[in-house]
C-alpha cells in the first residue's frame, strides 16, 4: 500500500505541526527491534501506533551499548541471541512502516552504522521507511559525515543534550538537530527512575528559549504522572526502559495478550501526555 504522507524529516515535522494544531504533546515509545522476535516487534509497533503514540524509536540491538542500563542491555542481548540482524531490522521496519501512521526512527550505535558504511546504511534506512536516527554515541564533533548523508536523503539526525552539556554547547547541538532535540533527563544510563531529576523542568524551559526545534525528554520516565509533568514544558516524552521491562515481564504470554498489555500501557501514557498542554 502506497502512503501519500510525507517521509523522513518532513514526516516528523508534520507530526509536530499536527500536535500543535490539536494542542497535544508527543509520546515516543522506545522498543527493541527483534525482542523477542520480529513478528512480535511488528505487532507491538502497530499497537503503539493505535494507542496514540506520535513517534516511535526502534532500538537496534548492539553488543556493547555503553549508554544503556540493565533493562535495555538485556533486551538487546535477547534479540541478538534470537538471531536479529541488520538485514532483518530493515525488513521489520518495512513491514511496520506500511501499517502505521507514526514515523519510526532508529536508535542505533554509530559502531553499527559505520560498519555497514554510512551511505549504504542511510540508503537502506530510507528504502525501508525509517524517518531518521538517534545515534547515542555520536557527538557533534564526529557527526559531519552522517549529517551530510542524512540531509541529502531527507532523514532526521536527532541530537542529544544532557545535564552535563554546557549551555553554549547545548545551543550549538540544538542548532544542528533535525526532527527534534532529545533532552536526556539525567546524567547516566537508560533505565526507569522513581523521581524526576531535580532541575529538569527548568533545564527544558531554558532550552525552549534557545531553539525552535521540538524538544523531547527521555531517560527514566515511566509513569503517566511523570510523563504529564514533563510534557507540560516539552514537546513530548520518550519512554523506553519502562516499556521494555513491561515487555520482558510479559514475555512468556501469548502474543495477543502481550500486545494488548502494551496498547493499554502506551494508551495511558499517551493520554497523560496528550492532555498536558
Amino acid at each position, binding site marked *: 500500500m502506497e502512503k501519500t504522507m510525507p517521509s523522513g524529516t518532513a514526516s516528523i515535522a508534520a507530526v509536530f505541526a499536527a500536535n500543535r494544531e490539536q494542542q497535544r504533546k508527543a509520546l515516543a515509545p522506545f522498543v527493541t527491534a527483534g525482542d523477542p522476535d520480529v513478528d512480535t516487534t511488528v505487532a507491538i509497533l502497530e499497537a503503539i501506533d493505535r494507542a496514540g503514540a506520535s513517534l516511535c524509536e526502534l532500538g537496534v540491538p*548492539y*553488543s*556493547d*551499548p*555503553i*549508554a*544503556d*542500563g540493565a533493562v535495555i*542491555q538485556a533486551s538487546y*542481548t535477547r534479540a*541478538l541471541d534470537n538471531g536479529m*540482524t*541488520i538485514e532483518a531490522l530493515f525488513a521489520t521496519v518495512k513491514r511496520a512502516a506500511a501499517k502505521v501512521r507514526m514515523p519510526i526512527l532508529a536508535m542505533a*550505535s*554509530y*559502531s*553499527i*552504522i*559505520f*560498519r*555497514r558504511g554510512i551511505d549504504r546504511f542511510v540508503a537502506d534506512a530510507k528504502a525501508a521507511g525509517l524517518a531518521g536516527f538517534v545515534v*547515542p*554515541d*555520536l*557527538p557533534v*564533533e*564526529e557527526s559531519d559525515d552522517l549529517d551530510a548523508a542524512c540531509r541529502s536523503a531527507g532523514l532526521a539526525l536527532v*541530537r*542529544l*543534550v*544532557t*545535564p*552535563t*552539556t*554546557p549551555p553554549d*554547547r547545548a545551543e550549538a*547541538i540544538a542548532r544542528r538537530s533535525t526532527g527534534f532535540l532529545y533532552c*536526556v533527563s*539525567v*546524567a*547516566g*544510563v537508560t533505565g526507569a527512575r522513581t523521581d524526576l531529576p531535580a532541575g529538569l523542568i527548568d533545564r527544558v524551559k531554558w532550552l525552549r528559549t534557545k531553539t525552535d526545534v521540538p524538544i523531547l525528554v527521555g531517560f527514566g520516565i515511566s509513569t503517566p504522572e511523570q510523563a504529564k509533568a514533563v510534557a507540560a514544558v516539552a514537546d513530548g516524552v520518550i519512554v523506553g526502559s519502562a516499556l521494555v521491562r513491561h515487555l520482558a515481564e510479559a514475555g512468556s504470554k501469548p502474543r495477543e495478550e502481550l500486545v494488548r498489555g502494551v496498547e493499554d500501557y502506551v494508551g495511558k501514557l499517551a493520554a497523560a501526555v496528550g492532555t498536558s498542554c
Partner: protein
Amino acid sequence: MSTTSPAPSAPLGPLSSVPDALGRFGRFGGRYVPETLSAALEQLERAYEDAIADPAFAQELDGLLAAFVGRPTPLLFAERLTKLAGGAQIYFKREDLSHTGAHKINNTLGQGLLAMRMGKRRIIAETGAGQHGVATATACARFGLDCIVYMGSEDVRRQAPNVRNMRFMGAEVRPVETGSRTLRDAINEAMRDWMGSVENTHYIIGSVVGPHPFPRIVRDFQSVIGREAVDQCRRQFGRLPDMVVACVGGGSNAAGMFYPFIDHAGVRLIGVEAGGRSAKAGDHAASLSYGSPGILHGSLSYVLQNEDGQTADVHSVSAGLDYPGVGPEHSYWRDAGRVEYTSVTDSEALDAFDLVARREGILPALETSHAIAWAVKEAARRPADEILVICLSGRGDKDAAEIARLRGMVDG
C-alpha cells in the same frame, strides 16, 4: 595542536606528531561517546595540557616513578636465552620489576595525579589481567582516593591473586557478569558507571584505548619505558637496537615502548597479538592481524566484529590480551607500515613462559610470554651482532595458578 609528551626533548617526526586536535591518528581514533561524557573528556584534555605545561607535575610524577615504582627499570641481557636461540642478542626491558609487577603503574600514577588536579576523588577502572586494577588500587591507596575496579567474572577467576591484592589496598572489585565476562565487558561497565558519576569521578582507563584524549595520555605516561630504553641502548651499546618487540592487548606497553623509537626508521618494531587457539574467528584476539576498521569503546581502530558491527567473541589464554580491539595509534602505525604486527598462539606463549622461567629465572606474565615467543624465534634467524629488545611488560605470579591448572589438564 601541541603533542608535547612529558619528554619535550624527543624529536618529533611526522609519524609521532599525532594525534591532532580531534584525537585522530591518521583516520583512526576520535571520540565516539555519549554526549554525557563529552564535557568530562574536554575537562581531562584541558587538565592534561595544563599538567604537562607545569614543571611541578613532571617533578611529582618523576619523583614517584623513581622512589615508589623503582624506575628506571633495568635493561638485562638474557644470556642463556640468547645462547639457546643462537642468533641476535636478546635483552629484556624489565617492567616486571616495577612496583606492582607490570608497566601499568606508570599510567595509573600519572592519571591519579590528573584526577586530583581536576578535584575528582573517586576513581573507577576496568581490568583484565588484574595488573591495571592492582596498579590503580595502588595509586589510589597512595593518594587517598576511593577506588572501584570492574573485572569480568571469568578474569576474577583466572587472576585471583590480583583480586585479593586489590582488596588488600582498599579497592572495591566489582565482578562483571555480562557478555563474555572479560575485559571488554569490564570496560562497558566502567563506562556505564562513568555515565552516572562523571561529575565527581575519573575513569583511569588501562590501555591506549577509548575516546580521545585517553590514547594519547596513556601513551605519553607509558613512553617512559621507551625513553629509558633509548638511553640505556645508547649507553650500553653506543647505538639503538635493531628490533624492539612488545605484546599488544590494548597496546599500552607496546605504545610506550615503541613511541620514542617511532621516528628512528632503522629500528624494526614488532607488536605481538594473541593468536589463541587458531586463526578462526572466535579463537583468537588479534585485531590488527585479522580485524577491520570499526568503532569500539569510543574510538575508530581495528576491531574484531561481525558483518553487522557486533563485537566478536575473542579468546586468549592471557586475560590481558583477551580483547577484541586495540589502541588507535597502533592501527595508524600498522597502516603506515611503521610497525609489524603478528600473533602467537596460546601454546607458544605457554612454552615461552616455561623457557624463560627455566633459562632466565624470571616468571614472565602470560601477556609478555607472547612477545617472548615471537622474539626467540626471530632472534634465531638474525645474526649475532644484532640486538633485540623485548618489553618484559610484567611478572607472571598472577598466572602461576592458572598455568598449573592448564598444565594439570594437559597432563590428564
